[in-house]
């Protein structure tokens, strides 16, 4: 918690902003003090970005006023906002890829050696800022060579170089890996401790709980709650976001555990770069059971899933069997016929085809079955009935079955994939990161569907980096570290601390 929380830097009063047909901000109040992280939390479309664009002078509000350090100010343009010491890291970066870091930082600034830019001075300034906040970036490297995380750091440096005191970060973690998120949070905490005011925008509850000093929740353009991590918890935040009670952990009835459906023994798999990624793993999942796989990403989870799905070759000596049938030598098609189903981690690359329609993605696996075709021709009437049924069963929000899938939200695309993968009552399901980047409402739905299928006797493997998800869904939890199973523990009595140690490779 911040200790040196100072005076109010920003106050936004009764801000109302309309777009044709949408009330994006409805009389919103929001303020930021020096030395704090104030989080704006809300589902996609809640109005978070709009509020911050009003602050940054990109939109003029219909109603309301903005006070900067107590003075009412009409912010007319981004330049004006920057002069008022406001910095903004947009959801989409605004850097010129072919210019260097220093050139990007200098872009649009007056230099001491007009009309020439003094890049040396800029580089020195960048080095100072880098040192102060641990933002390691080489000023002379071209932007296109940088990773997403590094580009984000350049954006932050750019804002700090312009002497920003109030910094807005619009969903900065959306594009980052978990490790990069940790690094970013460390930087943000440093900045907060040095007295800057930060606005952090997110819809990920665990991040919000970890970083915020205060939290304001937006829903449909209105403030629906103002709280702090100490006074709140994930499920309270979730209900404020969604507007109803949300079950973050699904109800799991006790079911009888049946016979083994997925048996893996001595499974070893190479990673993309040749090194061993999965190292002699033994696992068994029985009917009616969900096995959670926890682990820091990059410890063999992806390779494990792909090997079971038949998308990656296994080393000799490995066995995989489904319902007692050895499938290790089969291709993906035959494994699916043997009862396997698979929700891949990379939804838009492996799970669905963006250019295909909703209906086409719903039959991507079963398009060749007798149900949907006869004598080599599609039976469109049957396909439509089947797909409309799935769309309504899984509450997929889509204008029509013919809508291109890429135009839907991540949550709806994931529902389509899940609907497709569960349609055949599979015996075994491998679900990788089933709710990553998905709205809370959709995540809740996906969880309840997975539990329903488990209750009907499916053996499920849920691979997730989100420990809360694993703890909420799984019956047993296997922790992967460095391609090996560290331990398998029952969910009763398992704690995050215990799992965290196992994930780090420490065996008790």
């Amino acid at each position, binding site marked *: 918690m911040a200790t040196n929380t100072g005076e109010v830097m920003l106050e936004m009063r009764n801000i109302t902003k309309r777009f044709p047909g949408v009330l994006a901000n409805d009389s919103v109040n929001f303020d930021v003090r020096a030395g704090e992280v104030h989080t704006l939390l809300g589902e996609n479309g809640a109005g978070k970005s709009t509020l911050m664009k009003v602050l940054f002078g990109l939109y003029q509000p219909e109603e309301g006023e903005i006070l900067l350090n107590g003075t009412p100010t009409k912010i007319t343009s981004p330049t004006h906002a920057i002069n008022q010491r406001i910095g903004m890291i947009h959801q989409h970066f605004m850097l010129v890829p072919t210019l260097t870091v220093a050139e990007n930082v200098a872009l649009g600034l007056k230099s001491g050696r007009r009309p020439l830019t003094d890049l040396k001075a800029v580089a020195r300034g960048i080095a100072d800022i880098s040192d102060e906040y641990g933002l390691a970036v080489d000023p002379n490297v071209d932007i296109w060579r940088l990773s997403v995380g590094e580009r984000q750091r350049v954006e932050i440096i750019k804002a700090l170089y312009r002497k920003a005191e109030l910094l807005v970060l619009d969903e900065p973690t959306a594009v980052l890996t978990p490790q990069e998120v940790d690094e970013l949070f460390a930087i943000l905490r440093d900045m907060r401790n040095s007295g800057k005011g930060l606005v952090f925008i997110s819809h990920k509850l665990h991040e919000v709980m970890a970083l915020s000093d205060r939290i304001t929740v937006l829903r449909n353009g209105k403030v629906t709650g103002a709280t702090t991590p100490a006074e709140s918890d994930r499920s309270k935040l979730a209900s404020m976001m969604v507007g109803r009670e949300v079950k973050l952990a699904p109800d799991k009835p006790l079911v009888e555990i049946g016979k083994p459906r997925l048996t893996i023994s001595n499974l070893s798999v190479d990673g*993309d770069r040749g090194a061993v990624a999965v190292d002699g793993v033994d696992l068994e999942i029985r009917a009616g059971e969900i096995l959670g796989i926890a682990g820091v990403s990059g410890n063999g989870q992806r390779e494990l899933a792909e090997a079971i*799905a038949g*998308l*990656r*070759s296994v080393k000799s000596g490995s066995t995989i069997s489904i319902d007692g049938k050895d499938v290790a030598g089969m*291709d*993906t*098609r035959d*494994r*699916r016929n043997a009862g396997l189903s*698979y929700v*891949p981690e*990379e939804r838009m*690359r*492996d*799970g*669905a*085809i*963006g*250019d*295909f329609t909703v209906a*086409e993605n719903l*039959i*991507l*696996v079963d*398009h*060749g079955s007798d149900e*949907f*075709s006869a004598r*080599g*021709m*599609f039976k469109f009437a049957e396909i439509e009935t089947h797909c409309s049924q799935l769309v309504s069963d899984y509450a997929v929000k889509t204008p029509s079955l013919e809508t291109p899938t890429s135009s839907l939200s991540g949550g709806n695309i994931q529902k389509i994939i899940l609907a497709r993968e569960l349609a055949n009552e599979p015996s075994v399901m491998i679900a990788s990161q089933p709710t990553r980047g998905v709205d809370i409402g959709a995540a809740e739905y996906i969880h309840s569907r997975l539990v329903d299928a488990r209750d009907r006797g499916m053996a499920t493997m849920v691979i997730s980096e989100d420990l809360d998800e694993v703890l909420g869904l799984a019956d047993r939890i296997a922790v992967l570290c460095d391609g090996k199973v560290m331990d398998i523990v029952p969910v009763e009595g398992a704690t995050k601390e215990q799992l965290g140690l196992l994930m780090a490779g420490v065996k008790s």
Partner: protein
Amino acid sequence: MQRLFGAAVPLLAALVAFACGAIMLVAVGADPVEGLRALVDQAVGSGPRIATTLVRATPLLLVGAGITIAFRASVVNIGGEGQIVAGALLSTIVAIQLPNLPGILLVPLVLIAGALGGAVWGAIPGALKAYASVNEILSTIMLNLVAVQFMNFLLRGWLIDPLEVERGTRIPQTARLSENATLPALIPGSRLHLGVLVAVLAAIGAYVLLWRTPLGFRLRAVGHSPEAAKAAGIPVKKSIVTALALSGSLSGLAGAILVFGSESVRMVTDGSAAGFTGSAGFNGIVAALFGGLHPLWTIPSSFLFGGLLTGATGLQRALQVPAALAVALNGIVVIFVVSSAKVRTRLDQLANARSEMKEVLKDA
């Protein structure tokens, strides 16, 4: 609405190309209006001329429809020339071997043989790509050369007309093939033969295949996202081979139609590929691009190009301009069509899917 607009773009491109053509005509001192009149008159000025145009367009349409199939699976087939030759050779051999079979059997048989020959010639680069990661753009072009040499070898040796040997002229051509294999005329006394109808049906068939059958669904899935297709259990490698084989089969069909729809009813070459195919294997690609890589739009587009090709001779005769001008005009149309935004996005999508495909083919 969007479809209409999609059609308007290439048409606009064609108009601009014609404007450029007119400027070229003026530059060589000819009257462009007179030129256009001569071109149109030659292409569609009378019944027989329309028939000639349609017959000329037939191989373009078949090759073009084949290109659209390959393209939807993100496979590029530049092997139309070779596949035409392969189809022609196989159908010729069948006709030579079974000269006495009645037409009702022999005609379908030679068409099937043509399709089969083209399919095999397409499947080879398909298999090379799928199982050995050989770029099909290169391998299809190479196989064009191989097919031509093979054709020359056969037409100078085993298949040569015995009369040519007797006379010592040794023109590389087969003997007149069985009359039974001649493609029947659609209108008695006209040059318009069954092949034209077959080509139109084949283009419609390509459309039905791609959007109405599970097989076409798989090809399109692989074409859009080999990764997602693979994860869904769709065999990516097999689909690549299938796409090229199907694409080749339509070109092979064109080869059979070129032989059995010709007035000489024999296979003849001047030793080059174009000597037999009339470059249909390449012009068909242009027709497909002009049709937005959609099999149905390829039908009017091919007829347009057929008209342009036959019309060019009229233009040449009326204005006494070099034949190269017609070729240049053709080239200008291609440039404008390919640079039109719609075709560009299609080609970009293709490039994306192809790089993904490379990854998929690399591992396992």
